[in-house]
């Protein structure tokens, strides 16, 4: 089935993808607002707003969203990223209208009750502190912080704790009213539903909303990196970790396709969705060079698909008794080798097949498909991923070597190490 696109008069983009035999229908709404829209002082506001949008408003009282979806046996959640904020409900097919009603109230009528906002401050700080407990989360935060000096990717999506302690309810509400508007959103319905009836209900729920002028993007362009940057976190712990971030272009850049194939060759492929499963790739350069060599216990490579130039991240957990600098050298050698000599035809064939087949795994079921359609419509367009993965299929080994050489150089990287102090406990 093809995906049908509609646009309401108020600018709301609607994607409909029918799966008549599905046992469920999913409604996703994505907003073109993420932590990249924040400024110093209100870091974490996007994520906090997301939390507030589960607390009622309009026809919905506090706790109603949980209760309504709960009694239907549905799934629901929200996610905030650097480039977008996204919500969904997956429910039995005869409850599509309920999901649409919830999303409509969420778009324009959220309550932002002052007492609830204050209670949520504690929840969000707790979420941040849970992340601080994790060495890899700390290291990831440090990596992006060092790699970007000016661009909002400099701060974490959850925000700095000092901002979370300070932000006022009115700042959040203003931020919400500015960005949560039909002309800044994408609504996706996937599953068992009638398209005609669905569009009637979408128009009834969302049609009355007026568009809002959207503020111009910050326009901050990160200056080119002119030399390696390094960061170290020394803290009590049990394992050392290494992360290397290479500055790479934005998703719309033509080099995104070869960078994805490079990711597969370097660190294996697990699709682009959130439902990769418990699988470990062992047929990749980093695994062979670091884990098989007994230097690391796990490795990974990830080309982040971002609206603005971002990072290609190589990471490893250092095996006990191994000097982290040895792991860094080995990872650098793996990368350097790919910069000098293209991957083999067999490696490319494997990578391309994995990318093609995992695209099917990624789209299994209405919820997973709804996520991909909405996510890519928000950061590019909903056909972008299909086109991108198709473009990968025509790439040759030299295309992969070229982007490795262009972006994975020493002067273009930030190296962060978590050195665990074993004595504390």
């Amino acid at each position: 089935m093809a995906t049908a696109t509609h646009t309401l008069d108020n600018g709301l983009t609607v994607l409909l993808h029918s799966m008549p035999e599905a046992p469920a229908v999913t409604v996703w709404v994505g907003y073109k607002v993420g932590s990249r829209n924040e400024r110093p002082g209100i870091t974490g506001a996007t994520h906090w707003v997301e939390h507030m949008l589960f607390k009622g408003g309009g026809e919905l009282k506090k706790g109603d969203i949980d209760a309504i979806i709960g009694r239907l046996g549905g799934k629901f959640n929200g996610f905030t990223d650097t480039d977008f904020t996204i919500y969904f409900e997956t429910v039995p097919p005869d409850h599509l209208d309920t999901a649409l009603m919830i999303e409509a109230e969420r778009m324009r009528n959220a309550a932002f009750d002052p007492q609830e906002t204050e209670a949520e401050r504690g929840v969000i700080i707790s979420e941040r502190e849970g992340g601080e407990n994790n060495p890899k989360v700390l290291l990831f935060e440090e990596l992006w912080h060092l790699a970007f000096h000016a661009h909002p990717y400099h701060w974490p999506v959850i925000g700095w704790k000092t901002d979370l302690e300070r932000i006022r309810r009115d700042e959040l509400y203003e931020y919400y009213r500015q960005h949560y508007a039909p002309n800044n959103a994408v609504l996706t319905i996937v599953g068992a539903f009638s398209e005609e009836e669905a569009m009637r209900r979408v128009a009834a729920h969302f049609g009355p909303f007026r568009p809002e002028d959207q503020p111009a993007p910050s326009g901050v362009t990160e200056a080119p990196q002119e030399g390696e940057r390094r960061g170290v976190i020394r803290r009590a712990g049990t394992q050392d970790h290494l992360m290397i971030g290479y500055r790479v272009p934005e998703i719309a850049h033509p080099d995104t396709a070869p960078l994805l194939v490079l990711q597969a060759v370097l660190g294996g492929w697990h699709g682009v969705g959130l439902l990769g499963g418990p699988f470990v790739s062992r047929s990749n350069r980093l695994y062979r060079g670091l884990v098989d060599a007994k230097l690391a216990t796990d490795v990974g490579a990830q080309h982040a698909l971002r609206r603005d130039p971002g990072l290609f991240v190589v990471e490893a957990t250092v095996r006990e008794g191994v000097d982290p600098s040895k792991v860094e050298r080995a990872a650098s050698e793996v990368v350097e080798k790919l910069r000098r000599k293209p991957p083999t035809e067999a490696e490319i064939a494997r990578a391309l097949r994995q990318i093609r087949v995992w695209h099917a795994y990624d789209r299994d079921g209405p919820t997973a498909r709804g996520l991909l359609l909405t996510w890519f419509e928000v950061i590019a367009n909903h056909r972008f991923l299909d086109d991108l993965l198709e473009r990968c299929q025509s790439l040759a080994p030299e295309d992969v070597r070229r982007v490795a050489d262009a972006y994975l150089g020493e002067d273009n990287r930030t190296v962060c190490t978590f050195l665990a102090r074993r004595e504390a406990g």
Partner: protein
Amino acid sequence: MSDSVRLALDNGAVLLLHEDHANPSIAIRGSVRAGAAYGAPGVAECAARLLFRGTTRRSAAAMSDAIEDLGAALSSTNAEEAIAIHGRCTAETLKATLRLLTESLASPALAETELEKVRGEVLGDIRAQQDDTRRAATRRLSELVYSRDHPYGRDPKGDETSARKVRPKDVRAFHGAHYGAAGLILALSGDLDGKTLQNTVASAVEGLDAGSPPNPVRAPKPETRKSATIPMAHKTQADFVAGRVAVARSHPDYYALNLANLLFGRIGLYGRLGTTVRDTLGLAYYSFSSLDARLAGGHWSVSAGVNPKNLVKAVQAIRVEAERLEKEPFTEQEIRDGKTHLVGALQVNLERNAEYAGALHDVEYHALGTDFLARYPALVRAVDPDSVRKKAVACFDPTACSWVVSGPVAGLKLAF
């Protein structure tokens, strides 16, 4: 489950199929009753991790290349009772994927070089767990609830000492004794039909040796209430977990207790517990309860991640919520909502092949009957509301729970 197919092979393996051609992929979910309960500490963990790392016919590298060249995926993870097998492939690659799966089950190399790599991974995982407030607390709670004398009380990974001691001959002996087809379940969902199940899947699996049928795990005995503190001064957040022995999946009280647990600490954003601890008091990002019902027994637990300065208040709030179950039992409306949730969730959760294969597997694993998915709504609707209230009060009694707190909590005085 009316549209599903079940095939019991002569060697004892059971195959299950759900046909769905909406997505051009196949999800595989299986298990072998070769968990940590059946071996010396650490051996089952290494055997599970070594499963797809080479066979007598191909090296570890050749095996991973063969799987990944297909665009397929196969993995195995160890637990207390069984190892779990997960797989993905397409109709086109099903036959080749199953050949690699059965070759791995029948004749894994269990080579020393791979065991050394696995040993490093296990040690790394044990250390990561020691440094993770939530995992460390949860692990310790299992020891308190079941005691280390019972397989459910021991870490399926073993400990650092056992991980260092495992030898290839231990793993080979364990594999020979426990990886027979008699304890094998394979559920497949997706782009295949009954004919393929018979011709491709059954023909790949029927060649496996039956081996011995798995012995049952003995039932755990309730332990006396205990508590433990795991100080981690370098952490920002503390984790609190409390729990006690509950029921096996086959116990007649399971359905009432499952509904009670749903209402107490799961439905919506964590039920009554989440409403109070997270939503109203703003003390924690997560605060929920779990019912872990296995073959021979199970346990109920409650968890919360909290800033140390809020810990006393959060633990008190959890206790008050548990005690409230007697004074303010679940209302008729709550129980109605819980029942409709369970029925609706079954439908919604079967939207993906991986989930459908998982559901088919679990039905077989717990011997719930081939018509279980069809009967499930009636089973849920028939649960007596008074039984739900009584089981909640009896099982979620904080004074009967063992508890653990981990994180920057040295010197903290805590009671539950």
